[in-house]
C-alpha cells in the first residue's frame, strides 16, 4: 500500500497525539525486568542450595520471601512458583 506523506500542521498534530505516554508505573516495571529476573535467579539458586528455604517457599512463597527480605513484584510470583515447583 502506498501512503500519501504530505503533511499539514493538523496531520502532524494528529500523529503526535496518536502516541500518548504509557503510564509511568508500567514503563518503570518493564525497565526493572532485568533486575527482577536476576533476583528470581538468585531466589531459585538459594532454594536449590537451602532445603529449609525451599520447603518454606513451596509451602507459602510470599511469606518465605518476606521472611528473607525479598521484595518481588507480585506479577512475577506465578513464574517464580513455576520455577520452584511450588
Amino acid at each position, binding site marked *: *500500500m502506498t*501512503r500519501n*506523506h*504530505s*503533511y*499539514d*500542521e493538523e496531520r*502532524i*498534530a494528529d*500523529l*503526535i*497525539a*496518536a*502516541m*500518548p*505516554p*504509557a*503510564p509511568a508505573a*508500567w*514503563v518503570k*516495571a*518493564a*525497565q526493572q*525486568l*532485568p*533486575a527482577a*529476573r536476576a533476583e528470581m535467579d538468585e531466589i531459585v539458586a538459594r532454594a536449590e542450595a537451602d532445603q529449609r528455604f525451599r520447603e518454606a517457599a513451596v509451602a507459602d512463597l510470599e511469606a518465605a520471601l518476606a521472611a528473607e527480605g525479598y521484595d518481588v513484584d507480585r*506479577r512475577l510470583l506465578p513464574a517464580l512458583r513455576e520455577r520452584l515447583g511450588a
Partner: protein
Amino acid sequence: MSLALVADADLVARCRRGDQEAWNELVNRFSRYVYAITSRIYRLESHDAEDVFQEVFTRTYERLDELRDDSAVRPWIGTLTRRLCLDKLRGGGREQPMEEDEEFMEDGDAFADLDEALAVRQVMKDLPEHCAEILDRFFARDESYKTIGEALDIPAGTIASRISRCLSKMKSKLEGRKPRFQPSGS
C-alpha cells in the same frame, strides 16, 4: 552519543549484552507504541492493556536472542503486541498464531498511522528549543499552556506561538524526508 539517538539494531545489541541503560531506552522507545496498540487500536481495558504491555516487554527481554534482524525490532514488537492483544480479546491464556479473524478484524490504516507516528517522533528529536517537549505535552499529554509554561519555565503567553513555530519546523523536516520512513532510531 545519547542512547536516545542510537539506532534500533545497536540498542538491541547492547541489551543482549546486559546493558541496563540500553534496556531502559528500549522500553522507553517502544512504550508509547505498545501502549497505543493495546489501548487505541484494540481498546483493551486498562488492566488487560497493562498485562499485555508487561508481557510484551517480558517476552522481548527473554527472546532478544531469537531476533534474526536487530533492526527489525520495531515490527517484531508490533507483531508480538498484536498477537497478545488478540489473545487477550479471545480470552485465552496462551498466545496463538496470527490469523485472519473476522471477530477481531484489524484496521491496517491504524497500524500504518502508528508506524508513521513513531517516525514523526524520531523527527521531533531533532527539533530545537524545547520543541519536542512542547509539542508532546500539548498534543499527546493534553497539557494546558499554563502547565507547559511552568514545567519548562517559559512564559505561558508564548506557548501558542512556539507550538505554531515548532509545527512549521516539523512540517519542513518531514517534507524533506524520503516518502518511506525508516522508523525509530535508524
